[in-house]
């Protein structure tokens, strides 16, 4: 369970998160939508502990992320995160990309790590690309590799930050399919996305962010069918 309690965060004088309260249960798929700069990415990086917060608490399975005593590196292996930019490690093959962290962070043996990596890569449909360098792959393939890389740490939660927005339109589908598959397998996920159709279809709940505030949160049918927040209405009108 991820519990976000009254979290505030500023960059200099710019307040980016203005007191967010949100709980994500095991097995749930939560989608976050919202305009550019509304603080969606910032929230994800705070959950992961990549950014400090100014006030409030974030608990992952009861562990406070920003407490001094927390071993962040250990916690992070529980929380997979995939970003908009693919962030493939260009100097490693696809297989090596996926094997690196399990070996160095979890201390897996080479054989174990490889076995697991091959499994995850096959899972996302890259079983044929093991020895290839990421720069030789399409954006969609690189993004799926990034997902496999996160999955290889056997995380209990996955955070996705607009994983399709840097992709050419024809490549979006293959990545969304991978996300759908994960959702159907019961992975707990928080997805920031601009793909409304996907959000509607896959989410248990959808949250709408506006200027650092979570303006509305509801089941997809309710949120898309009968939006209450006027900003959300505007936002939905603009997106289609």
């Amino acid at each position, binding site marked *: 369970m991820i519990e976000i309690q009254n979290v505030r965060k500023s960059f200099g004088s710019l307040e980016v998160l203005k007191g967010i309260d949100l709980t994500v249960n095991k097995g749930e798929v939560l989608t976050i939508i919202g305009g550019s700069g509304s603080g969606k990415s910032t929230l994800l990086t705070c959950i992961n502990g*990549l950014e400090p917060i100014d006030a409030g608490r974030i608990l992952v399975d009861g562990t406070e992320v920003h407490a001094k005593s927390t071993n962040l590196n250990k*916690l992070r*292996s529980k929380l997979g995160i995939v*970003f908009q*930019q693919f962030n493939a*490690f*260009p*100097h490693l093959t696809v297989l090596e990309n996926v094997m690196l962290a399990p070996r160095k962070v*979890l201390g897996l043996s080479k054989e174990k790590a490889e076995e697991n990596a091959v499994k995850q890569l096959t899972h996302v449909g890259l079983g044929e690309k093991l020895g290839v360098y990421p*720069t030789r792959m399409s954006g969609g393939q690189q993004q799926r590799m990034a997902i496999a890389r996160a999955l290889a740490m056997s995380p209990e939660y996955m955070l996705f930050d607009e994983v399709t927005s840097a992709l050419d339109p024809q490549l979006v589908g293959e990545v969304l399919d991978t996300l759908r598959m994960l959702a159907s397998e019961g992975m707990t996920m928080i997805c920031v996305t601009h793909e409304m159709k996907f959000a509607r279809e896959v989410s248990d709940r959808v949250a709408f962010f506006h200027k650092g505030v979570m303006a509305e949160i509801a089941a997809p049918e309710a949120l898309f069918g009968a939006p209450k927040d006027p900003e959300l209405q505007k936002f939905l009108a603009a997106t289609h």
Partner: protein
Amino acid sequence: MFSYTFHWNQALKALPQMLDGALVTLQVALLSMVIGLALALALTACRLSGNRILGGFATAWVEIARNTPALFQIYMAHFGLGNFGIHLSPYTALLAGIAFNNAGYLAENFRGALKAIPDTQARAGRSLGMTPVQAFRYIVLPQMLRIAFLPVTNQMVWAILMTSLGVTVGMNTDLAGITQELNARSFRTFEFFAIAAIIYYLIAKAVTLGARLLAARMFRY
């Protein structure tokens, strides 16, 4: 046009001696690169450390190395330090001068290479649970070495060329030293220096070619 008659066959007699000198040249250049690389890494670490004194020290080193002539640096290593009773043999002074120079230029290269690697790379590593040191060691460093490889190769060629400055501090076993001595004895400047030029050219080419082959093997992405 030429009233000068070339004495090539006499000059060529000295070829074995000059080739021995070429070996010394190569040795000094290689050593100066190894030391220079180690120092450059240390300087880069100093500059990244955020410590003012270390950072200032490293910056001063880099700026002096890059803004004064290599000849001056070598001369300083011999006669400048000699003033304080620190006596470096010509070989050591030459090596120290070039290594000092190399370290300055290489540190600057490393800095450029680091800048070229997006922050998101280290961040991606951290998000997988790596410590900052692990993220640097396994993700940033290998990419940095690739970017810096070409400049490092160029610096190696520079190091070879710089060894010729050893003659100013009494170095007489390297290629330039031997050439200069042969020349002083016989006054056959053109012949000896032409042979030396060809040898230097071949060494430089061999190093560039070797580096290129090495790069092709090392960086396959």
